[in-house]
Structures are given as structure tokens and as C-alpha cells.
């Protein structure tokens, strides 16, 4: 039997929903052919939405009420089981990622999604250095992505440099900008840092839009050269100088997609590898110490300036690599690809995955970006679902999808600890 309290609660929720949705869902403003505005009513939609809210709230209350009877603290049997399963997640994911192009039934479309997901995995891992390890909240990460993309596009356009020359250059330029941004914000903490990095991202975008003579403005840059396989271009002609001709294969457009897929997989794994290695070195430990307590860091003689700047620079460098890859993959870039929402999505991937957890970031990228692609048919509803999923995941799992962390240093046996024990840093 449904308790009366739950019913009343759901009724109130429906009442609030009624107040919320009557003006904005019930009355739609449309532009008439003459240019004026007129209202169209949609009362049935309001009734449907309110009904959904009523039922949703009712189910939620009942479900939470039942779950609330059990103690929620302490590791349950589930946690232990999940932990054991968790050790296999990373190798399995890696194996699937490496074999993906050769799994039967995987087509060009699926590979394209794979490339997209891996790009976000790489961006997530890059930002994880700044936010997850060093604890510096960066809301303008997309600026470095943009700098990397535009570095490659402009160097290729004006100097005719190839992708392989530009890739390191894009990374270095992005790292340089990372230091340039990092320098003035060294003294800032927490939300102030967040808002300055957000402003920095917007400044870069506005400059890209308005500096028409260099960047082409809102029209962007097209015809960005595609990467070659150690000097062998992917061409449909299939002559002796091309990839297909050299290896004696049938020329196919899929070759380039597979190559791009492995390229971004390699770049992402490079990011991961560098992060894992650095965590064991003095610099990485200094980052994590900085995240836990900046004052203690200073007292122990850690150079906070160098530590913060190196985190910014390395994070930015990987963002720059990803940007150069994005430019060569798309062959066209415009400032529209580098809006604040991108920064927010990357940050969401890092936080939803679990700050500082490498596997968590990969899973979150897969869930968010892969899921986003699954809902392609929903068109404008897609972002609505995406935002809703962000709220729902965060509210139900504030510490991210992967709730455990592996400490870098441990006395005796090394084992996973709860994410709650890790500080999130104050910038």
C-alpha cells in the first residue's frame, strides 16, 4: 500500500511542476509570418509532464524509503564485489578499444563514435592532471583545445607544415599559453580561479571570432591537411606512393578512419601513461600534496609556483595535442567548436568519472559521449537529456562513478581507498 505521506509529497511535486510548466510549456510563443508573436496553447503537454513528475516523485520516495531502512555507511557486499570486478575493467576496456576496428559489424559510423569518445577520454585525462591531481579548478580548458587546433590549422595553412611536425608544436604552444594563463592566477583559489579560467576561455573564443584576417573569423578554417602514414598519404587513387598502394591493399576510405582511430588511441594512452608515471615522481606527488593542503605544502618547502604552473602546462599540452588531432580529423575548424559548453562537458567527465581516477574518466567519457551519440535521433532533446543525466549522476553519486582511489604511496599493502578520503583541492 502506498503511504499517504508519499502521495502527498508527490502531489506537492506535481503542483510545483504545474506552476513551473504552465507558462513555458503550456504557452508557446511563435513568430507569425508577419513577424509578430502569437501564443499557442499546449495544455495536454502540461498535463503529461505533471503526471510524469507525480509518478517519478512517488517512485523515488518509495524507493528511497525502502533503501533508507538499510544502513548506508560502511562497505556492503556489493562494494567488495564491485572492487574485485573493478580490477578487470581497465584491461577489458583497453582490449576492446585496441581491437575495435577489427570486430565484425563495426562500421565507419561506430569507428567515428569511437574516435569522438577517445578524444574526450584524452581531454578528460588531460584535465584530470589539472583538476584531479593538482586540485586546480579549470573551467576554460577548451581554450587549450582551441589553441592546439588553431596552431595546427594556421601552421599548415601559412607555412605548409605537416601534421607530424605540427603535433608537438601545437602541444608546446598550448603549454606556453597554459603557463601564460597560470602565472597571473597563481594567487587565486577555488571559485575565483574557476571564473578567471572561464573568462580566459571566452576571451580566446571571442578573439578567434573577431580576428578575421588571421583566423577567418566565424567562417573558420577549411582544407586542413589530413595526416599521412609516415609520409604515405591516404588517397583513393591507390598509386605506389599512397598507403594502399605501398601495402598492396584495396584503396578504401576506411583506412584513414582506422588510422585516425589508432592515432587518438595512442595519444590518449600517452596521456594516461605520462600521468601514471608522473604520479610516482616528485612532481606528481607534489601535485597531490598541493591538492590536499597548500599551506602544508609551502611549509614543507614545495615550490608551489612551479608545481601549479607545471600542472597547467602539462594539462594544456595534452589539450593542445587533442586540438591538433581534432583539426586534422575534421579538416575544418571554427570557433563554434570551442564554446564554454565543451569545457563544461570535459569537466563533467572528469568529475562524474571520479576526480583523479583514470578508469573513471574513461568510463564517464564512454557513458556521456557514447550515450549522447545514442540519442542522436532526439535532436534538440539530446542536450536536455544530457544535462539531466549530469544532474542525476551527480546527485546519486557525488564522488563519481568510480568511488575508489589508489593512493600513490602506502605503508604495507597498497589497496583502494574510498574517494571520500581524497580532498578535492581549493585551487
Amino acid at each position, binding site marked *: 500500500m502506498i503511504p499517504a505521506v508519499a502521495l502527498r509529497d508527490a502531489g506537492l511535486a506535481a503542483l510545483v511542476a504545474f506552476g513551473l510548466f504552465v507558462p513555458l510549456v503550456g504557452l508557446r510563443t511563435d513568430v507569425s509570418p508577419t513577424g509578430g508573436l502569437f501564443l499557442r496553447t499546449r495544455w495536454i503537454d502540461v498535463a503529461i509532464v505533471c503526471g510524469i513528475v507525480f509518478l517519478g516523485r512517488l517512485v523515488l520516495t518509495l524507493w528511497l524509503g525502502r533503501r533508507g531502512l538499510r544502513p548506508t555507511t560502511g562497505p556492503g557486499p556489493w562494494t567488495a564485489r564491485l572492487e574485485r570486478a573493478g580490477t578487470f575493467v581497465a584491461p577489458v576496456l583497453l582490449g576492446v578499444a585496441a581491437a575495435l576496428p577489427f570486430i565484425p559489424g563495426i562500421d565507419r559510423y561506430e569507428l567515428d563514435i569511437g574516435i569522438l569518445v577517445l578524444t574526450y577520454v584524452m581531454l578528460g585525462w588531460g584535465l584530470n592532471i589539472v583538476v584531479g591531481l593538482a586540485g586546480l579548478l579549470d573551467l576554460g580548458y577548451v581554450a587549450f583545445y582551441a589553441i592546439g587546433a588553431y596552431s595546427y590549422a594556421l601552421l599548415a595553412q601559412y607555412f605548409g607544415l605537416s601534421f607530424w611536425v605540427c603535433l608537438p608544436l601545437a602541444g608546446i604552444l598550448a603549454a606556453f599559453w597554459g603557463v601564460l594563463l597560470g602565472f597571473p*592566477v597563481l594567487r587565486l583559489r577555488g571559485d575565483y580561479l574557476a*571564473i578567471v579560467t*572561464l573568462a580566459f576561455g571566452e576571451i580566446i573564443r571571442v578573439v578567434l571570432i573577431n580576428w578575421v584576417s588571421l583566423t577567418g573569423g566565424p567562417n573558420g578554417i577549411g582544407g586542413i591537411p589530413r595526416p599521412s602514414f609516415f609520409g604515405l598519404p591516404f588517397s583513393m587513387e591507390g598509386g605506389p606512393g599512397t598507403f594502399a598502394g605501398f601495402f598492396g591493399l584495396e584503396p578504401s576510405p576506411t583506412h584513414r578512419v582506422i588510422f585516425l582511430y589508432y592515432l587518438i588511441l595512442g595519444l590518449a594512452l600517452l596521456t594516461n601513461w605520462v600521468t601514471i608515471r608522473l604520479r610516482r615522481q616528485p612532481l606528481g606527488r607534489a601535485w597531490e600534496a598541493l591538492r590536499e593542503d597548500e599551506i602544508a605544502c609551502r611549509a614543507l618547502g614545495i615550490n608551489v609556483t612551479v608545481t601549479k604552473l607545471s600542472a597547467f602546462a602539462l594539462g594544456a599540452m595534452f589539450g593542445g595535442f587533442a586540438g591538433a588531432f581534432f583539426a586534422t580529423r575534421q579538416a575544418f575548424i571554427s570557433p563554434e567548436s570551442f564554446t564554454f559548453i565543451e569545457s563544461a562537458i570535459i569537466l563533467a567527465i572528469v568529475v562524474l568519472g571520479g576526480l583523479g581516477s583514470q578508469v573513471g574518466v574513461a568510463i564517464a567519457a564512454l557513458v556521456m559521449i557514447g550515450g549522447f551519440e545514442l540519442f542522436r535521433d532526439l535532436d534538440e532533446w539530446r542536450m*536536455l537529456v544530457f544535462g539531466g543525466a549530469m544532474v542525476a549522476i*551527480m*546527485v546519486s553519486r557525488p564522488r563519481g562513478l568510480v568511488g575508489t582511489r589508489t593512493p600513490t604511496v602506502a605503508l604495507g599493502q597498497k589497496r583502494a581507498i574510498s574517494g571520500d578520503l581524497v580532498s578535492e583541492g581549493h585551487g
Partner: protein
Amino acid sequence: MAYALQQLINGISLGMIYGLIAVGYTMVYGIIGMINFAHGDVFMIGAFVALIALLLLQLGGVMDGTAAILLMLLASVAVTALYGWTVERVAYRPLRGSFRLAPLISAIGLSIVLQNYVQVSQGARVKPVEAVLRGGVEVFREGDFAVQLSYMQMLIIGTTLAALAAFTILVTRTPLGRAMRACEQDRKMAALLGIDTDRTISLTFVIGAALAAVAGTMYLLRYGVIDFYIGFLAGVKAFTAAVLGGIGSLPGAVLGGLLIGLIETFWSAYFSVQYKDVAAFSILVLTLIFLPTGLLGRQEVEKV
């Protein structure tokens, strides 16, 4: 001279709108120590509700300018306050006591939801409205350049001042305001002394949203064009204003809003319109580097 005076008037009326939104940011920041990322979108909702109210009033035959504006304000404030309450309830309350980044992400998620909800329910096209209030007075004349103070600008400045006055009285003279200030200083202690902190925080969001609704209505009336995306830029600039004035300080938010409005207007008038946003953001970066607590903010003492 006359040109500068005109820009001053324009800048003040724009700055008032930013100031109203900035108060919402600074209040929420003061009480829970977090940026309300969905606040810009709450402002956008306020503008949309005002638009719908205006169309309803025109259908109902209310043609008188002042009455229409008053009713629009009432409708917008009522509905938008409900949205503000919902934002707190959905994105902040379940994460109370959680670590700091969690509510930030859920608020960014909610901001995406609100934007796309309005896009889906109201359409992506920009909504133009006819001016409700026309005309103005000539303040000053130099040669053939007349400095105009339009009735609309007078209305914006007057309404903003009235809203801020009401709000100041609320914060300084009423039990609710006292509870808010107590929560701001020490939430745990306030709770121990019998203040319903959850309710106080909810009401803070509601009041912030109500002020954002006033700003949204003014924005609609002044510029006559809105779309679902106006919340982002206005939100970032209002937050800049709050930081510039010293976050947590209510007079600071208004002062910061006025400064941002003036800087933006004068920059557009004398330098370049394209880079006006860059000017506003550069001011933000410079303030934080040289004056990290803002103009009227208090120095934070850090204890180990």
C-alpha cells in the same frame, strides 16, 4: 561631452540590469559559498515569462503601458522565484555537505537543462517584441546632438532602485534577513540556535531568482529581443560584476554591475563593439590579480 553623457546614461541602465543579476550571485555565494551556475538561465527564464505575460496581456486587451509592465513584473517574479526554488531543491539540496565540485557540476547540468528546456518548449528562434514604452526626455543638447533619457531607461533605473531598496530592507530589517546573515557567517551555529537553515537557503535562492526576474523583464523591455541563450553571457558578466564588487558584498554587487555596464558601454562607444566582452573579462582578470577580494570585499583570513 554630450556623446559621453549619453553613453553614461546607457551604461548606467545596462549596469543596473547586471547589478540585479549580480545580487543573486553574491547572495548565494555568501550563504553557501558556491557559484550558482544556473542563475544566468534563471534570468533568461524571467525574460521569457515576462514575454509570455506580455502576449497574454495583449490578448486580454490590457494596452496601458504602466499597468502592463507592472503585471509582467509580477508574473515574471512569481514564476521565476519558483524556478529558483526548484534549482536549489534539485541541484543543491541533495548535495549539501558533499564536496565542493559536486554542486558545481550539478548546477552546470541544470543550466544546460534549463537552456535546452526553453529551446525545446519555446523554439530556438529569437523573439522580437514591440516596444511597450516609447519616447523620452531630452536632457541636454550640444549642437545637433541631443542627449536622450528614454522613459524605458528611467523605468529601468527606477525599478532597479526600488527592487534593491526593498531587498536591502529585507536583509537588514527583517527576521528572514537576520537569519540569512547568520547563515552566511556560520551555518552550523545558526542551525544550533534554531534557524531553519534549509528554509533560509531556499529563500535566498527564491529572492535571488525574483531579482533576476526583474532584470529579465527589464532586459526584454529595453532590448526587445530575447532567445534561449541570453542567460549565459549575462550570467558570466553579472558574476564578473559580483566578483569585481567583492563577492558576498551586496552593495559591491550593484557597484560592480554599474562598473561593468559602464565599461562595456564606453568600450563599445570609443573602441570596438566586437571586443566588448573581452574588455569585461579582462577587467575581471585584472581585478582578481591586483585586488583579489574585489572593491568592497572583506579580506579572508585563512586558518590552519
